């Protein structure tokens, strides 16, 4: 019995080792966190114990459970008696939606411009490369501040503006990959059967370069989260009554001495989320595309 079980445990250990080499524990934890907050934002409406704007004036600045508070407000309440947990859930959803939509916008702009540059070359390419250099040289946060101030701030505009962040990197990557792909046989072959450029780029080149683009997009997400929370922290991002993670930290700053829990939980969520997405992005990059740095 004992000598029969020995090889099987060895097999077990080596299998486990192989599993953890392919899926490092840090990556698994990061994926678990991302899945968790994704689920939270999808089911936000069911998970929130209160409406995130509901006031509870009898129970203002209530302490969270872990600081001796009651279960009435798990993570405490803020200066107007709004439930921190409910606001946190709503904020997670807002920040994730902004990060995700902005990255999609950046990817759409970047991929289109990258393909245009690769397809037409010549002066079109020069103009696009110039725009990429320009974008990389200007202080985006400052421009964003200025635009927000003078456009007035709506959520749509804010998401569009955040979508301007990072497109230049995706455009540069796309252009390089598309030019390389055009020199490989499959794209030329598709074009030589009479396929239109839309088909060549959309149905052939795009799927072939998708893994690299997904990595680049993943690495863009934490940057947008940080940018969004920074602007919201300054009071120039997501506007009340809507709330986002940066927003909560920004308002919670006033109560840092008396009620630090207001900013504690959103700050932790920002850090964990950017950390998790970066870890997963780096891991994806190493796995899918070691050439991208």
């Amino acid at each position, binding site marked *: 019995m004992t000598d029969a079980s020995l090889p099987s445990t060895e097999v077990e250990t080596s299998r486990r080792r192989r599993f953890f080499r392919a899926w490092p524990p840090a990556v698994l934890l990061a994926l678990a966190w991302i899945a968790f907050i994704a689920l939270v934002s999808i089911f936000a409406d069911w998970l929130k114990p209160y409406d995130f704007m509901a006031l509870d004036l009898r129970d203002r600045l209530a302490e969270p459970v872990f600081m001796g508070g009651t279960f009435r407000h798990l993570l405490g309440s803020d200066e107007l008696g709004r439930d921190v947990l409910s606001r946190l859930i709503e904020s997670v959803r807002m920040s994730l939606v902004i990060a995700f939509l902005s990255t999609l916008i950046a990817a759409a702009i970047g991929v289109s411009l990258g393909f245009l540059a690769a397809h037409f070359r010549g002066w079109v390419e020069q103009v696009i490369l110039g725009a990429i250099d320009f974008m990389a040289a200007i202080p985006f946060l400052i421009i964003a501040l200025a635009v927000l101030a003078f456009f007035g701030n709506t959520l749509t505009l804010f998401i569009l503006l955040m979508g301007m962040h990072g497109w230049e990197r995706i455009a540069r990557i796309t252009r390089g990959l598309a030019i390389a792909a055009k020199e*490989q046989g*499959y794209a*030329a072959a598709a*074009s*030589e*059967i*009479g*396929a239109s450029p839309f088909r060549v780029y959309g149905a*052939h080149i795009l*799927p072939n370069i998708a893994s690299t683009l997904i990595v680049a997009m993943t690495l863009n997400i934490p940057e947008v989260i940080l940018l969004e929370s920074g602007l919201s922290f300054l009071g120039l991002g997501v506007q009340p009554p809507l709330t986002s993670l940066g927003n909560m930290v920004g308002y919670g700053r006033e109560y840092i001495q008396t009620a630090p829990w207001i900013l504690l939980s959103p700050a932790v969520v920002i850090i964990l989320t950017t950390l998790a997405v970066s870890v997963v992005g780096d891991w994806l990059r190493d796995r899918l595309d070691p050439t991208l740095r």
Partner: protein
Amino acid sequence: MSALLEVEGLVKHYHVRGGGGLFGAPVVLKAVDGVSFAIPAGRTLGLVGESGCGKSTTARLVLGTLARDGGQVMFDGEPVGSVRDTRWRAQRRAMQMVYQDPLSALDRRLTVGKQVVEPALVHGLGASAERHEKALTIMDAVGLSSRFFDRYPHELSGGQRQRVVLARALILSPKLLVCDEPISALDVSIQAQVINLLVDLQEKFSLTYLFISHDLKVVRQVAHEVAVMYLGRIVERGDPEALFHAPAHPYTQALVGAIPTPRTRGRARAALQGDPPSPINTPPGCSFHPRCPRAEARCRSEAPLLRPLADGRFAACHFPVLSTPAREAA
């Protein structure tokens, strides 16, 4: 009989920077320099030459996938352009290409079936079910069973991949297939199979081939006529057997002599002297003269034209070898 494909005076020059770094004056690389030929429907023209002689460029010029600098290509009575307009796209239905490296010509992200169907989809032929049916028929014709339909290119062997490339070309029922070194990337054991398949398919679908190879031996197996290219020009053209047994141009002679056969093995061959000159600095006169054992003063000053010989062949040489068997010419 009028030819399916007529090529007249095809020219492709590249302007490149010369040596000497950035100070070099721009020079002209004559990749294709006045090539003419015609292929009757249902026949095969073999185009032979060393790498860099302009064979593949000729193929791309014929198909109109590369803009030419001069000359004219008539396909089925219509001129072939290189501007990708509606007519260009329509012409793709009738003229298709078979590539040297099947793995790079196939999209590794799509299944074999999707890629075989794609040309029909692009040209809007038939309904979805018909296209599927047609793809299976064509795959069967090139010797691929239907179980390959959902496989990906990397799961296939080299020979099978080349069959996929063929099926993809044939689904449009083209008249002309341009085969650019279709077997040189394949294992030797597979090469004969693919050659036989090409010959069978020609008969079955009454195809016309422009067959490009560096290997005279392979061309001899498939071609009805052979053209030998050297530095962007055709130096000899004619019946493969005649050309093989009695090459008229010294360059053809050298090529034939380079083929190892039981009889020539161990004996002196008509080896080429010197390096192939680059197409940038083509020598004056006959471009072959620096390597030619028979070169005389006239060859250095005057470029020979492609002229008919007594037996109906054509050669571009001032002093063609007439009816001398290759093996003795050494």
